[in-house]
């Protein structure tokens, strides 16, 4: 590679001559590096500014208010927050065990020749645009669930409160599953990296003591990276909470307190996507921006916490080495 570079025609810089190129590049790069900070501050400022009328009007009561009514100009996010919580928590409950299992498969159990193709396919799952997943969700998965899966679930699981109800093409269940599909590849590739980072001598030590491969995984590998798995889960949660497009397509956009996993509902992100462009009143637009503020706060908390956890983990394992 080095030979591909243009032949160096380097003259020693004359003493005292300022190196304009050097200083120029340094400042230019510095300016670019400051830009993400500026953008973050601008995002926080601008979204809060838009939300300000609603923040002043409703304050923190916005979070518990259960009315969203443009006619009376009363807005509360409780049902949307519940919708977001149900969809992302259910999605994580399915996705995280699956993703950790896939990470283990890719890092440990899989035959070597299978690792690259399977890893690539998991990455491709993450690359499918969310709007395409949403299209598939609304026109293929939703009707399939309503026809074949939900009647069975109602028959067999209907005694559990939340699992009773009526089949529906759009609703919470397809939203949970679409979010699961989106979260799995993210958490899977994080956990693969984590498992690959476990030092070989620890693993071999456990094997030498006579553990089976699974016992080695459970007693050595998983505890070694547990902090990182928590961090990965939080990143997945942030992703699930913030996803707007695919959820809007499959959830049905009904504002009510979620009472059945099959019924249409709505989340914070999907309400913004569905209504922000054509809101009837100024206060309803501000209230949608208020939802955006809440989403921003959640994403900041989950993201920074995840980074602090994995940063601490890195320091600890460096101390170990």
């Amino acid at each position, binding site marked *: 590679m080095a030979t591909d570079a243009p032949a*160096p025609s380097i003259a020693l810089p004359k003493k005292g001559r300022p190196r304009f190129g050097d200083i120029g590049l340094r400042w230019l790069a510095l300016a*670019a590096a400051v830009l993400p900070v500026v953008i973050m501050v601008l995002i926080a400022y601008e979204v809060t500014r838009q939300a300000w009328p609603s923040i002043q009007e409703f304050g923190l009561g916005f979070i518990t208010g259960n009315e969203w009514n443009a006619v009376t100009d009363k807005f509360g996010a409780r049902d949307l927050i519940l919708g977001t919580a149900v969809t992302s928590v259910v999605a994580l409950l399915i996705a995280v065990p699956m993703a950790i299992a896939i990470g283990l498969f890719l890092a440990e159990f899989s035959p070597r020749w299978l690792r690259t193709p399977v890893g690539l*396919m998991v990455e491709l799952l993450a690359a499918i645009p969310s709007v395409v997943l949403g299209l598939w969700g*609304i026109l293929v998965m939703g009707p399939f669930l309503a026809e074949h899966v939900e009647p069975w679930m109602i028959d067999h699981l209907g005694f559990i409160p939340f699992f009773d109800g009526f089949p529906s093409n759009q609703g919470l269940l397809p939203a949970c599953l679409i979010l699961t599909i989106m979260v799995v590849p993210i958490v899977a590739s994080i956990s693969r990296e984590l498992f690959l980072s476990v030092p070989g001598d620890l693993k071999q030590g456990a094997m030498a003591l006579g553990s089976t491969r699974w*016992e080695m995984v459970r007693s050595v590998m998983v505890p070694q990276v547990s902090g990182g798995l928590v961090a990965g889960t939080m990143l997945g949660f942030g992703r699930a909470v913030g996803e*707007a497009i695919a959820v809007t*397509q499959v959830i049905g956009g009904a504002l009510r307190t979620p009472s059945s996993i099959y019924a249409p509902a709505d989340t914070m992100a999907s309400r913004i996507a569905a209504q922000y462009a054509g809101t009837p009143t100024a206060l309803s637009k501000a209230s949608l921006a208020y939802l955006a503020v809440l989403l*921003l706060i959640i994403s900041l908390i989950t993201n920074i916490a995840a980074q602090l956890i994995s940063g601490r983990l890195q320091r600890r394992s460096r101390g170990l080495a």
Partner: protein
Amino acid sequence: MSAQAGRNPLAASTSRSRRRKLWGRLMEGLASFAALVAIAVLLIVIASVAKRGLPAINLDLFTQVTAAFSFGAGQEGGLKNAIIGTLIMTGLATLMAVPVGVLIAIFDTEFAPPKVSMAIRMTLNVLAGVPTIVIGVFVFGLLVVGRGQSAWAAAFALAIIILPVIARATEEVLLLVPSHLREGSMALGATRARTVMTVILPSAVGGLITATIVGIARAAGETAPILFTSSVFANAVVTDPSQPMASLPFAIFTNSESPSQHDQQVAWAAALVLMTVVLIGSIAARLLSVRTRRQIEQTR
């Protein structure tokens, strides 16, 4: 490994050890099953988009324009303006984000002290975690209110989304460039800037291309930032970025909720086109990054 343990007389095959081995097999089987499910989901999505999209693809699709809100209004509607709009907006976003992203990576790997570099990385991760719909709301307030929608605004929103992606991918490759190349160049009396321009960037050029492709693939498929910045467009091919444009993701989004059979077919066709481009881009980026890694490692 377990076979060797079985031959060991000390680990005689008691029922307990058999149970432990069976348990291990079961867990390994479950992990393989999880991987299988993920692959199956990928293949099912690809197959159903292909099955419904392929029959809908015809010449009209590429020669006729789509309406902003057709909603079963009639049989008209292709994707010509949506394809051109996506190309232009994605291109503009890439042109904005790549130079800045590469400069951030250069600052981070070549100039910044470790603490600063950690702070920059943290900010990039935070920015990458901001929901895209929030970025849509942000750009709407910043650029659309008072000025109206435009492809510039949409491209700006897309650029914010792909900036951390490009910066992090570039950084990863720059970190792979062996330090002896850097030191050799400096020892010959080259300035930092010259070292970056003539030694480091050329040896990482494959990585820069990878980062760019990843950014393009991401930008092409994003819908949320376009929703408020470029969604009310003329039913014609628009090439002036100061006007809002149609786009493939937006065409899929609106047509997917239409009751009209024809609109749904247009959505499937658009999804097939978009998905094919994005998946090919992702595979290409992946293959290229493996090659770049190998090449850089050979210079060690």
